[in-house]
């Protein structure tokens, strides 16, 4: 690949560009008529793809295995050089820029983190800052800051080696490493593919939190459609040869799939999947009558009756929920105890309605207690709230979104076929057949 020949002047060119990647928000990306043909393959892996990736958004690439998601992603940081077309970042054509310099400004996360096993967590995270010439103190401070960001205690983890971390922790460090020099763009290739389902959900939530804070442009490949719905501001559904079947918001892809391929890809349960689109924070929470440990139960019951509620929520001195007591339970108690109820139905304010519903069903409580930062009690979400949200999101899916980014294939493959007459049209037929099977 050409990086190998171009690397010697990386040192000389890096000095003038090294100061760039400190923008706070993401940069837009444009793939302009990009085609990739691998040597010895008749069909291009990516075929005349034009695609806009808006700044500060998460764009998810999904599609069947081998359809060209990874190839498309790697053309953005030019780990794979496009055969044709241009890559434009924030209005600048980077197709001919020094690729090492380009990549120092683009975070890159791969499955299982791709951490270097012979370097400590801190060294791993500090690689790009070091290449950019940061001094030691600044790198050390940045490492700690990033470890905090990905919820790892710096004192505990900074000097560990990757093999001393769990899979999920390695993946977190991988994300921290990609964010080290505060790049405007983050590319992720099936980042959560190698961790167990529970850790995956947690990592997804954390990515959403991080993104809320940092507003990067994130392009993320996944084979898990639910993950795409959960994380994506926009979802691009690809077919063989990186043919864009639909590029739209999760709401509209679920509510109005463009064609049969997309419908098949979504699979069953589109209605339930819509529940993952709305977060507890986005629906109206109901207030609750609260009480504190040590209070007389009769006083709390009086307040519940006065408010016309069925339950009271007991919170500790830091406003963390401990118990949820019905009128009947309050009536039987003398004094409110401070023993937390282990089966309390609690969801975070960032959780999806799907999670909330699940929590309610599991605890058969008909409502879930919502907590915000530091597990502080925020309010209650109940089944009626969830039903209202479904109705609203279904209505929203019917509307046209006018700000949808551009995404299309100029279809070099089809263009060639239609221009050249009978023989290639046969190829086109077989190509369509293959597409329909997928």
């Amino acid at each position, binding site marked *: 690949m050409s990086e*190998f020949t171009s690397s010697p002047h990386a040192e000389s060119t890096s000095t003038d560009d090294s100061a760039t990647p400190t923008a706070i928000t993401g940069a837009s990306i444009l793939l302009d008529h990009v085609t990739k043909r691998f040597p010895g393959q008749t069909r291009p892996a990516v075929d005349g793809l034009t695609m806009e990736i808006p700044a500060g958004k998460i764009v998810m690439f999904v599609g069947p295995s081998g359809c060209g998601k990874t190839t498309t992603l790697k053309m953005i940081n030019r780990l794979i050089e496009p055969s044709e077309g241009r890559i434009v970042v924030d209005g600048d054509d980077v197709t001919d820029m020094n690729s090492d310099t380009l990549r*120092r400004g683009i975070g*890159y996360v791969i499955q299982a983190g791709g951490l*270097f096993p012979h*370097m400590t967590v801190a060294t791993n995270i500090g690689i*790009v800052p070091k290449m950019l010439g940061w001094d030691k103190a600044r790198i050390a401070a940045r490492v700690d800051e990033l470890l905090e960001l990905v919820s790892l205690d710096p004192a505990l983890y900074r000097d*560990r080696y990757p093999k001393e971390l769990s899979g999920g922790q390695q993946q977190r460090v991988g994300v921290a490493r990609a964010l080290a020099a505060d790049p405007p763009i983050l590319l992720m290739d099936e980042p959560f593919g190698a961790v167990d389902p529970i850790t995956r959900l947690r990592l997804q939530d954390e990515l959403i939190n991080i993104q809320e804070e940092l507003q990067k442009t994130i392009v993320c490949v996944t084979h898990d459609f639910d993950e795409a719905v959960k994380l994506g501001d926009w979802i691009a559904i690809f077919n063989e040869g990186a043919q864009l079947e639909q590029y739209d918001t999760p709401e509209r892809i679920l509510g109005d799939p463009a064609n049969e391929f997309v419908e098949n890809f979504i699979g069953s349960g589109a209605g339930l999947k819509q529940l993952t689109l709305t977060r507890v924070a986005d629906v109206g929470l109901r207030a609750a009558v609260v009480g504190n440990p040590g209070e007389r139960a009769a006083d709390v019951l009086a307040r519940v009756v006065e408010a016309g509620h069925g339950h009271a929520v007991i919170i500790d001195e830091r406003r963390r929920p401990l118990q949820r007591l019905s009128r009947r339970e309050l009536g039987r108690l003398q004094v409110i105890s401070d023993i937390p109820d282990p089966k309390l139905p609690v969801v975070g304010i960032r959780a999806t309605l799907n999670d909330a519903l699940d929590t309610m069903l599991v605890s058969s409580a008909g409502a879930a207690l919502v907590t915000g930062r530091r597990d502080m009690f925020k309010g209650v979400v109940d089944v009626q709230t969830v039903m209202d949200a479904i109705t609203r999101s279904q209505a929203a899916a019917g509307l046209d979104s006018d700000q949808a980014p551009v995404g299309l294939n100029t279809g070099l493959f089809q263009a060639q076929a239609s221009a050249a007459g009978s023989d290639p049209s046969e190829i086109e037929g077989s190509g369509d057949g293959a597409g329909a099977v997928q």
Partner: protein
Amino acid sequence: MNNRTLNTEAGIAGGDSAVETPGDPAAPAVPVSRARLGWQSWRGLVYQLAGILVAFLALVIWLRTADLSPIELTTLAPAALWGYTVEHIQLTLLAAVIVLVIAIPLGIALTRRPLRFLTAPVLAIANVGQAAPAIGVVVLLAFWVGFGFWAATLSLVLYAALPVLRNTMVGLQQVDARLIEAGRGMGMSSAAVLFRVELPLAVPVMLSGVRTALVLLVGTAALATFVNGGGLGILIITGVNLSLTPVLVTGALLVALLALLIDWVGRVVEHVARPKGL
């Protein structure tokens, strides 16, 4: 004797922990299990060194007590033996340095993209070449380049380069391709990836190739005497030619002990130089 061995072992155990300590302050989190592991893997090394020392003492005692002829006594005089040994080590080390300087860069070059198509054929040749008998290589080369120290060195170098070349290539090849991609993806140049990722991860395999080469060199350096290269081989040849069994045995034992000692040094280096975290 028994007492001595015990003392030796105790002395080495003490030395061993002294060697290990400098690495330890950097060791994070789990010092207890790490120290245990450390001792487990060091134990083999301690036994190997103890064995070498015991064998050497046995040889010394035997030479002192055996009934030797005057010729044998002159040939096996401590000063003479020391001289042959030093010559032997010189020959070995010189060859080793040349081997490393040639084989490691060559191994790196052959695994880089422009030459990668050569990796498989070169590995095949290296494997075959290593199976060829050393004596044949030494003698053939001697006829070609002439006799003497340099001829001996050259043939030794060629012979011992193979394991180093092979292990350098294998060591680099077995580095996880995703790590290389992660490095490039972060904007490390191909040279940076080579020096900061690939070579450190290949170190364990490469070092074991170097150790193999050194042991080979000690053994085959004995053959150098056939081309007037000097070294401990002279004892073996004299012993065979003049039917002086004690001389023959002493020469053979010294070569073997030297090889074991160098193997031990190699293992210690491998242990110390192995990147932490692997």
